[in-house]
């Protein structure tokens, strides 16, 4: 690579040709402020429309100021990143953005975590010099995501996530000039679009334009109702991220404090979605072996089998590949398996009527909000899971309830739905569900004990991974994809008859659930997602039991209640079916 020399703020700088001014400056400790720019390095996601112009710098000899995020360094360039001309321009740019932005920051959902607010603070904006017309749009509330487009600054990060990374295509910039806005087709509401509620638009939105539907008040009301028994389940990825909301470094495991906090919030029983993840492995793993063995006997069966834990992924194929909906496993997600077992097996056990049992889930995910509202997951109008709140909402709930999180002792989950294995924990990261399935499927299929449960070949952050696992002479070919755009590639291969896999794991969010739309905001720092992944594998290593089928409470559940995996009862409670959600077109 060609090396070039330039000057940034009087310092001699050497960099490689093609490097942007922003990156070259960063390497030398100069942080040029950015707003629309987003770079998740480890995930290879970049948004640089050079639209906001906050990152402008002066390049000597150039007539106008240059956007640092999109201007490449050239040999001999002399750059000033903070002289008076640059500072004035940057302030003007920011004030113009603010002139068409509501100033109700105190009551905004993003108060304190808004990148626009932080920037206004850092730039010392104390007065708005530009007063003029403000754009107004109606608010759009879907089952999971709220669009408050008055707060949109047209950074187009959401559009990039929705189209380039996820290839969902729900959002696009529409209209022109002052009227331009990011919206679904025909400016319809999200719930009339192909949106999967993956929440990646929310995860990257710098302002309050995209936020989750907040269910914390529903939870508070349920907890205050003396006629209700309220139980909670918490997903694996939550324990690896919640600490960030309380100032702990990314990747700090807070399982014990999380459990203690939930108990102090007043939940009657504090359970673990990981238990249901173990249950998922029993059902999904059995289904996998079932299809595999029939395939080996020469029967025509749908292979590869695709995992079905991720609700955004389910929404995705229902909308975009409805003709392939016999391929994914029929196993419900762990959230819904938990709800179904809680409202039958557990409700009977504690002698509480279904309608008096409230099941709350804490999820790293926004699509889970939609999933628990699906009609097929309710009995006589009573949902299996009543409310799903995100990791961020739980942090708010803890703060509102006067709980000093940092001083909490480590506590354990309750039984019987709180015991889990290392296999359940790794559901929180890309590669984890299939690794958990392999740990159980190997032993069931071969009848041999698996000595080393660490399948390192299934781990990592590469978007599409593949590995062949030796099932005692039988090679099992496994594919993994995270990010819906990558899932689309594998799905298209299946459609074209080019896929050679037996099983494929898919998670909608980059990184898997650890990078979910309900997690603490990463603000463009992908090392946070990597740290969470490390924490998940650490939790797995620390578990006494690491294979789902060895979970004693799972064994008991089958003995006393379900019979065996894929039994009629298991089928009724733990499996589902999928719908064609593509648009019907009839021609007259």
């Amino acid at each position, binding site marked *: 690579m060609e090396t070039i020399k330039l000057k940034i703020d009087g310092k001699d700088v050497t960099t490689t040709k093609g490097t942007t001014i922003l990156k070259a400056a960063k390497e030398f400790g100069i942080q040029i402020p950015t707003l629309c720019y987003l770079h998740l390095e480890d995930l290879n996601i970049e948004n640089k429309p050079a639209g906001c112009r906050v990152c402008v710098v002066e390049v000597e000899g150039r007539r106008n100021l240059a956007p640092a995020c999109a201007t490449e360094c050239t040999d001999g360039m002399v750059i000033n990143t903070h002289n008076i001309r640059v500072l004035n321009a940057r302030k003007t740019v920011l004030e113009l953005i603010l002139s068409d932005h509501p100033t109700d920051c105190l009551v905004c959902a993003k108060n304190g975590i808004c990148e626009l607010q932080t920037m206004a603070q850092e730039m010392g904006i104390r007065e708005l010099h530009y007063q003029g017309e403000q754009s107004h749009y109606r608010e759009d509330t879907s089952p999971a995501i709220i669009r408050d487009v008055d707060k949109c600054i047209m950074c187009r990060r959401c559009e990039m996530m929705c*189209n380039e990374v996820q290839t*969902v*295509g*729900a*959002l*696009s*910039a*529409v*209209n*022109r000039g002052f009227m331009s806005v990011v*919206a*679904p*087709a*025909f*400016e319809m509401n999200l719930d009339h*679009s*192909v949106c999967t509620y993956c929440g990646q638009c929310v995860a990257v939105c710098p302002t309050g334009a995209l936020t989750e539907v907040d269910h914390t008040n529903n939870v508070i009301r349920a907890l205050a109702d003396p006629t209700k028994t309220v139980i909670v389940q918490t997903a694996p990825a939550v324990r690896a991220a919640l600490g960030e909301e309380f100032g702990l470094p990314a990747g700090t495991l807070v399982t014990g404090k999380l459990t203690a906090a939930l108990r102090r919030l007043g939940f009657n029983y504090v359970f673990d979605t990981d238990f249901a993840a173990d249950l998922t492995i029993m059902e999904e793993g059995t289904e996998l072996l079932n299809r595999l063995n029939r395939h080996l006997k020469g029967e025509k069966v749908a292979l590869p089998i695709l995992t079905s834990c991720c609700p955004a992924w389910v929404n995705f194929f229902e909308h975009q590949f409805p003709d392939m909906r016999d391929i994914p496993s029929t196993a419900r997600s762990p959230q819904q398996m938990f709800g179904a077992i809680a409202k039958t097996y557990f409700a009977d056990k504690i002698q509480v009527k279904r309608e008096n049992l409230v099941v709350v889930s804490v999820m790293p995910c926004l699509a889970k909000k939609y999933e628990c509202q699906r009609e097929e997951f309710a009995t006589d109008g009573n949902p299996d899971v009543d409310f799903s709140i995100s990791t961020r909402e739980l942090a708010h709930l803890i703060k509102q309830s006067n709980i000093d999180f940092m001083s909490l002792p480590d506590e354990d989950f309750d039984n019987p739905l709180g015991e889990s294995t290392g296999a359940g924990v790794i559901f929180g990261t890309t590669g984890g569900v299939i690794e958990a399935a392999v740990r159980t499927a190997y032993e069931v299929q071969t009848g041999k004990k698996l000595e080393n449960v660490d399948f390192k070949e299934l781990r990592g952050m590469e978007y599409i991974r593949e590995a062949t696992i030796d099932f005692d002479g039988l090679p099992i070919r496994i594919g993994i994809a995270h990010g819906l755009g990558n899932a689309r590639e594998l799905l298209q291969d299946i459609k074209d008859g080019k896929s050679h896999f037996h099983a494929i794991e898919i998670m909608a969010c980059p990184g898997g659930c650890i990078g979910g739309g309900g997690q603490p905001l990463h603000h463009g720092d992908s090392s946070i997602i990597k740290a969470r992944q490390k924490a998940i594998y650490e939790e797995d290593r620390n578990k006494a039991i690491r294979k789902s089928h060895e979970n004693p409470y799972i064994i008991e559940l089958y003995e006393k209640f379900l019979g065996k995996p894929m039994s009629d009862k298991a089928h009724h409670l733990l499996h589902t079916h999928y719908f064609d959600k593509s*648009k*019907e*077109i*009839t*021609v*007259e």
Partner: protein
Amino acid sequence: MATITLPASKLDQLKDVCKSFNNDKKELINVLHKAQGIFGYLPAEVQEIIARELNISVAHVYGVVSFYSFFTMLPKGEHPISICLGTACYVRGAEKVIDEFKKHLQIKVGETTADGKFSLSCLRCVGACGLAPVVLVGEKVYGRVAPDGVKKILEEYT
């Protein structure tokens, strides 16, 4: 769920247009241009078909349709009237000409008369600045239009 109630023959024509551009997503604007020629406007259903044929999202198609003022989602009148608002036409009184059309037709810019006969729109520069202000009715160009000439133009079509 969109229910399409467009004539099947026109629909085939639309699919042929897409095919003539090799169903290439980069040709979206050209496809939309031809589609508007077939239907007179670009209703949601037409955009959905184009999205499917070119393998792009409907949101993206709508993004392009809503960006360019040439594209319309409302059916145009039998005689679409376009008034040039380019710099030359504007300084020579195009705005007064618009006002006169609005008064006579009792519609706003972007609307169509109740009988479906006329629709009113604005455009920027047709490249006939020497004739400013310029008005187009269908394909026919009228130059040096004064407000008191508006009535006469409309009478040609009634």
